């Protein structure tokens, strides 16, 4: 009997580990698992301790989600303590009565008492897609719990927040994770990790290109509104925060579609699978409620990446000052009325509205010729790096322009692109 139970056990753990293996190797979750892969996982499981030593846990972690409970449950399963696992699962279900993943684990643990089971979601004829969804959720949550963001590293994207942006959101679609960062003004605006949450992305993944492609966009956005629950269909759960997709850069790249929101979960389920939305980023309702408290309409940046790139604080500071220098040099060169020098800050591929670089240069030369003096002040600067292969940075600021014949205040947004070892402006316009 002991033997039977043990086999049953490893069945469950194996099925999950299999998913982990598939994920690590970036294979579809349906890839059959070989023994080698399994033992690889077993080995891999022993190492995280070492690596977590290197990157010790941040001071604040979000343990409000079910990740900790799931981790304990699977530890009990692997340790062949099925009764404990069942008890923990039932506790979890008391907390979240319509948590489908927990129901599935409970089903497996109960069925294991009746017959040997050799897979996760052991029900015969279980709809394979639904089981795969729940398994993917389990893997995403367990991995996120094991691998917290390293303490001395920050997402590369958060180069500079403007002072009144209290928080920033960074989404990692591959890891199904949303990270909440605080703008730590006492520490020179260094991003400080607050919490992270499980999220759902588009059915067909990230890098949205067109209307209806069921993908989540990758880029630098911000929340544009706060739609309360009462005004929403049940699908959106406790609330919704539309994003400004497509942004200037998206439009320039010819990306289409709209209606990309950050929102909650319908009432019939605690969580949705990692890939389930039409492109929106979906949080559980309890997580949305917490995150919502920190969202400022029109301000809070929401940066969605395929896979967050982390920089050590040193590298982050370097990149930040490099960009600040570029921006200030652009500002100074504009003030200097040396139009040729000023135009060296613009890419030959520059385009704003209908204006290309040639037209833009001609216009600037003409305007600057009539200037006796120019004063340019930049305030509330924010600098966010655009996730993706291209090195693009989104720069937003309040511009106070004064000259002998024209004063103008505006909120300006520029996209800077690295060309060689120089950052150049490829788009600018009012924000």
């Amino acid at each position: 009997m002991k033997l039977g139970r043990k086999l049953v056990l490893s069945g469950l753990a194996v099925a999950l580990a299999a998913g982990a293996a598939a994920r690590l190797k970036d294979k579809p979750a349906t890839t059959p698992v070989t023994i080698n892969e399994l033992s690889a996982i077993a080995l891999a499981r022993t190492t995280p301790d070492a690596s977590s030593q290197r990157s010790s846990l941040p001071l604040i972690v979000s343990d409000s989600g079910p990740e900790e409970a799931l981790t304990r449950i699977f530890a009990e399963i692997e340790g062949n303590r099925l009764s404990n696992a069942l008890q923990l699962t039932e506790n979890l279900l008391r907390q979240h009565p319509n948590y489908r993943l927990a129901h599935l684990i409970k089903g497996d643990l109960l069925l294991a008492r009746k017959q040997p089971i050799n897979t996760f979601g052991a029900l015969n004829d279980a709809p394979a897609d639904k089981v795969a969804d729940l398994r993917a959720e389990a893997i995403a949550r367990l991995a996120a719990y094991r691998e917290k963001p390293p303490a001395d590293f920050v997402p590369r994207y958060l180069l500079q927040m403007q002072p009144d942006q209290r928080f920033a959101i960074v989404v990692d679609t591959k890891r199904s994770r949303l990270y909440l960062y605080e703008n730590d003004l006492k520490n020179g605006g260094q991003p400080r990790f607050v919490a992270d949450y499980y999220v759902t992305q588009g059915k067909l993944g990230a890098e949205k290109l067109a209307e209806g492609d069921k993908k989540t966009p990758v880029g630098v956005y911000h929340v544009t509104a706060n739609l309360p629950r009462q005004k929403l269909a049940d699908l959106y759960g406790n609330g919704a925060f539309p994003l400004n997709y497509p942004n200037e850069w998206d439009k320039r790249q010819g990306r289409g579609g709209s209606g990309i929101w950050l929102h909650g979960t319908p009432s019939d389920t605690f969580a949705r699978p990692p890939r389930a939305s039409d492109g929106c980023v979906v949080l559980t309702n309890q997580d949305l409620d917490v995150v919502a408290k920190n969202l400022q309409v029109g301000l809070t940046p929401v940066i969605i990446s395929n896979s967050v790139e982390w920089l050590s604080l040193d590298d982050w500071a370097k990149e930040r000052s490099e960009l600040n220098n570029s921006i200030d040099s652009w500002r100074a060169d504009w003030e200097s009325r040396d139009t040729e020098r000023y135009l060296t800050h613009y890419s030959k591929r520059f385009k704003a509205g209908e204006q290309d670089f040639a037209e833009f240069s001609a216009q600037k030369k003409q305007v600057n010729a009539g200037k006796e003096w120019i004063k340019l002040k930049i305030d509330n600067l924010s600098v966010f790096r655009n996730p993706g292969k291209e090195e693009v940075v989104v720069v937003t600021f309040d511009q106070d322009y004064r000259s002998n014949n024209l004063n103008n205040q505006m909120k300006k947004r520029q996209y800077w692109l690295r060309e060689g070892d120089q950052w150049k402006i490829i788009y600018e316009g009012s924000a």
Partner: protein
Amino acid sequence: MTSISLLQPRFQKLKTLRAMAIGLAISFAVPAFADNLPEVQRLIKQGQYPQALEKVDAYLSSRPKDAQGRFLKGLIYTEMNKPADAISVFTKLSEDYPELPEPYNNLAVLYAQQKQYDKARTALEMAIRTHPSYAIAYENLGDVYAKLASQAYDKALQLDNSNSTTQNKLALIRDLITTSGKGNVKPQPAPVAAAPVVPAAPVAAAVAKPAVAAVAPTATIVTSTPGAASASPASKPTAIAAAPAPAAAVATPAPAAAPTPAPAKAIAGSEDVVKAMNAWADAWSRKDMRAYLGAYAHEFNTPKGMSRKAWEQEREQRIAGKGGKISVSFDTPQVTINGDKATAKFRQHYKATGLSSSTTKTLVFVRAGSKWLIKEENAR
């Protein structure tokens, strides 16, 4: 085998009672055997429940605490389809005699009937806590776990189980009360200390062949045969006792039975049927699977709609795969022949390591050339 004094073969006559109930009644502890109770049992047997209730109430009026009388009263209410009353009786009984597993078990059956599987589970786990070797409770608990698992899967996977599954559930419930009969109370000494609350996992061989599960009528239910009587949790996998028959409702631990059955009388041709039965019982005792399985007709009604192959595998596992000796014998059968069909009713005595049981069984034979082959096998 050590018999516990509770397990006196007291209710041998109660054959008509539902299997579950019989099994329960058998192991019941009664301090004093009162004259009225056999009368109550007779009335139950005859289906005269109101009269039985009257008698048992009269009996209880002078001994309101009497466990046996109250237990019978619970059974009567169950038979009268008064589950609320039955639950009330068994609940109070389990409170007054928490050491008895049977009231818990019957409560579980009643709760399961009402699809209150969580309550059923709690009750069965109590039964097992009080009696770690109580086979029926293990069997039932396995079924209840399967039901709970099924419910959990429904919630996890949002299965639409409006019609078909509901029917399956009902079928299973009918099974719980009527035919499943389950093993018997195994009068084994309680296993040492930490007897786990969970029931025994299915037999070791099943682990190697999980595919067997695929033939169960519903995905969510049971691979083991109805007759499986689980071993005490402490025993080794190979020692897990197989039930004597797909649906054995067992009355008593078998007294040593006459090894050779007396020939049936009266009906012409019945000798051939008895001969077939002898060959069948012999093959079973010798663990000669070829001969044993050969005794079953091609169109044999496998239990719970299993596939023939799965059923054969299971029998193989439970007979050939079993350690120790098996002895199967039967008392004089009552044989009726109707054309190419014969029905034999008899009492079967089954003995194996760690398990012995007597079962009232019916075999339905069909004539195939000169031979009689088993088409149905029912234990009641």
